[in-house]
């Protein structure tokens, strides 16, 4: 069996370190927000997880297209890894958002564009796994998975646009849609914690995807060995 590559080992350690630093920055370093108080600190991880969740979704759609063009199974493994890791991160985003929303909006959930799009995206991810589970032939599984991530990737932004027609109460961090929307302002220390959280989660995301791809190729190897034994 091939052992874990040294670069991946280093990345594992780096991930743990940046997560620890990011936690420190979010919980102690960043100043307490004036209006929302301590609960606002959840926002740093909320944005971090949301960012990689979205990144994974885009990566999955792109590698789906790449698979359909090249028919190379490595793209399929990349796509599965991206979807799987993103599903977890997106779920974390929704949970963290709910924790913040309870004191801030006085409700765990509201049908706001971002929240609804996040929920729909999560459902697309789940449908994707159910689709893959129902197909035995690996080649066909990869093909259908790629087609579905592509459809999901096209549909999610349109969902967002449609729901944006309804009124929104979600604070806008980057690029407000119109002037009267609530915009959150950050001071210098908050920005440091914010951008470091983005960086930390990106590193963790890369690390996890790498692990998942490695696991995927090991799975394939086991399958081939099993076939060889049974023959």
């Amino acid at each position: 069996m091939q052992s874990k590559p040294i670069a991946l080992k280093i990345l594992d350690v780096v991930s743990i370190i940046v997560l620890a630093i990011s936690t420190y920055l979010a919980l102690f370093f960043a100043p307490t927000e004036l209006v929302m108080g301590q609960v606002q600190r959840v926002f740093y991880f909320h944005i971090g997880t949301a960012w990689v969740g979205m990144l994974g979704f885009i990566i999955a759609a792109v590698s789906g297209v790449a698979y359909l063009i090249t028919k190379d199974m490595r793209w399929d493994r990349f796509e599965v890894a991206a979807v799987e890791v993103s599903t977890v991160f997106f779920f974390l985003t929704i949970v963290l958002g709910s924790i913040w929303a309870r004191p801030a909006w006085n409700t765990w959930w509201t049908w706001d564009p971002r929240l609804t799009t996040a929920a729909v995206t999560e459902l697309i991810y789940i449908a994707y796994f159910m689709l893959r589970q129902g197909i035995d032939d690996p080649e066909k599984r990869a093909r259908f998975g790629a087609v579905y991530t592509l459809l999901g990737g096209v549909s999610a932004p349109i969902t967002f646009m449609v729901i944006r027609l309804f009124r929104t109460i979600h604070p806008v961090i980057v690029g407000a849609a119109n002037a009267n929307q609530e915009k959150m302002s950050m001071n210098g220390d908050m920005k440091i914690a914010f951008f470091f959280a983005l960086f930390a989660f990106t590193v963790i995301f890369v690390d996890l995807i790498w692990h998942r791809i490695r696991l995927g190729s090991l799975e394939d190897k086991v399958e081939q060995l099993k076939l060889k034994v049974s023959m």
Partner: protein
Amino acid sequence: MTNKMQNEEGRMQNTDSIHPSSFITHPSLLKATFAIVQKDLAAEFRSFELVSAMLVFSLLVIIIFNFALELDVKVRQSVTAGVLWTTFAFAGTLGLNRSMATEKDRGCMDGLLLAPVDRSAIYFGKAISNLAFMLIVEAIVLPVYSVLYNVNLFRLDLIGIILLGSIGYVAVGTLLSAMSVQTRTREVLLPILLFPVAIPVLLAAVKASNGLLTGAEFAEVLIPLNILIVYDVVFIAVAFMVFDFVVEE
């Protein structure tokens, strides 16, 4: 003389072999699509299996909504669009599932794939016949709903929205039903795959229909209307491009 005859024969064979193949490699996409639509409609008008099932199902859904939502005059105003589109979406999945399952079960799909036509003709053919079934059901449900609840749904603008919404829904639905029919869970999987992807078209359709029914200004209806058109164009294009990957063996 013999040489000439051989030549002649050769040429004849040549033209013979060219003739059908040139016919095969240049079939009109429109013609092939139309042939598939014709086949589906002919089969349907002989049995009325699909449309009747969709229709009875739609009426049942409306009756259930009537009791679930207590559709009195006040509530009716605001929920009519939602009730209609939920009904169409559910009945639509029923039709989409059935129409692909018959192709698969009786081995017709293999026959279609062997036919020397462009694969996208199969997609467009199935999509158009699915759309036809959905429109037939809608054409019956609308007057029934109008009579039952005393709302006038016979408006050209509303019918236009319903047409646009159905096109988008069927465009993705046909592609996904071709996928779900090849999986182990089959019928169960289609709504799970279809609904999250079709949410934009359903939401925009509900929003636009609701605007029309409550007498909102045209500018308010225009945005969801634009989204409907964008969705239709984008998803017909995407489905057209990837359908080959879904049916290839």
